[in-house]
């Protein structure tokens, strides 16, 4: 148990640092979600199953859902995709030009 616990704690800390450092909001959000899931497991290891269920339902479930819908509302997800598509299109065009 102790071994698994320590690994999970390190994982949680790494997640927290990378959430703080990533530029991309969607990535940060997914990392945060996985951090919540790891927390749920840690709570089971700490013999608090009530907390494990609650964290899995709330931290990884509801909070992340609310964050996702917020990102959608502020078009952070779509804008990224759009800009990605745009850049890919530009790349394709420049490639075509080069070939020509």
């Amino acid at each position, binding site marked *: 148990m102790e071994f698994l*616990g*320590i690994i999970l*704690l*390190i994982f*949680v*800390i790494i997640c*927290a*640092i990378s*959430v*703080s450092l990533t530029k991309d*909001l969607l990535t*940060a*959000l997914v990392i*945060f979600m996985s*951090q*919540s899931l790891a*927390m749920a497991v*840690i*709570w089971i290891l*700490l*013999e*608090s*199953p*009530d*907390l494990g269920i*609650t*964290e899995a339902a*709330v*931290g990884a479930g*509801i*909070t992340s859902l*609310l*964050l996702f819908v*917020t*990102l959608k*509302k*502020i078009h*952070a997800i779509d804008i990224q995709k759009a800009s990605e598509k745009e850049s890919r299109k530009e790349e394709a065009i420049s490639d075509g030009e080069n070939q020509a």
Partner: protein
Amino acid sequence: MDFLQNYVELAAMVLFGIGFTTLLLHKNMIKKIIGFSIMDNAIFLFLAAKGYIEGRTAPIVVDGVQTVEAYINPIPAGLVLTGIVVSVSVTAVMLSLTIRLYRRYHTLDIDEITALCRKEGEE
């Protein structure tokens, strides 16, 4: 080795520091909110670790055994349950504030928003 004896608490404190700094110093609202969640999670982790006792099981009465030596401390778990509800409520309120701010100012940067708001003037 004595220093690492409280390793769960130490991890919780590191998490708290990271969350606190993200909440205080990150300019992006979403990052701030995630930082707040991490900070609260760290406090709850700390609290839950305080209730844990080596070699005992969760406080759910099995086979009518009701001796103190059988179960871990139930109080921290109850407090953390209450705390998680508070945390998710606050997160929802912060997120709705973010949506409203974005609808008005089209940015998530709190400094930029403040500057835009100043520029907007009185009414």
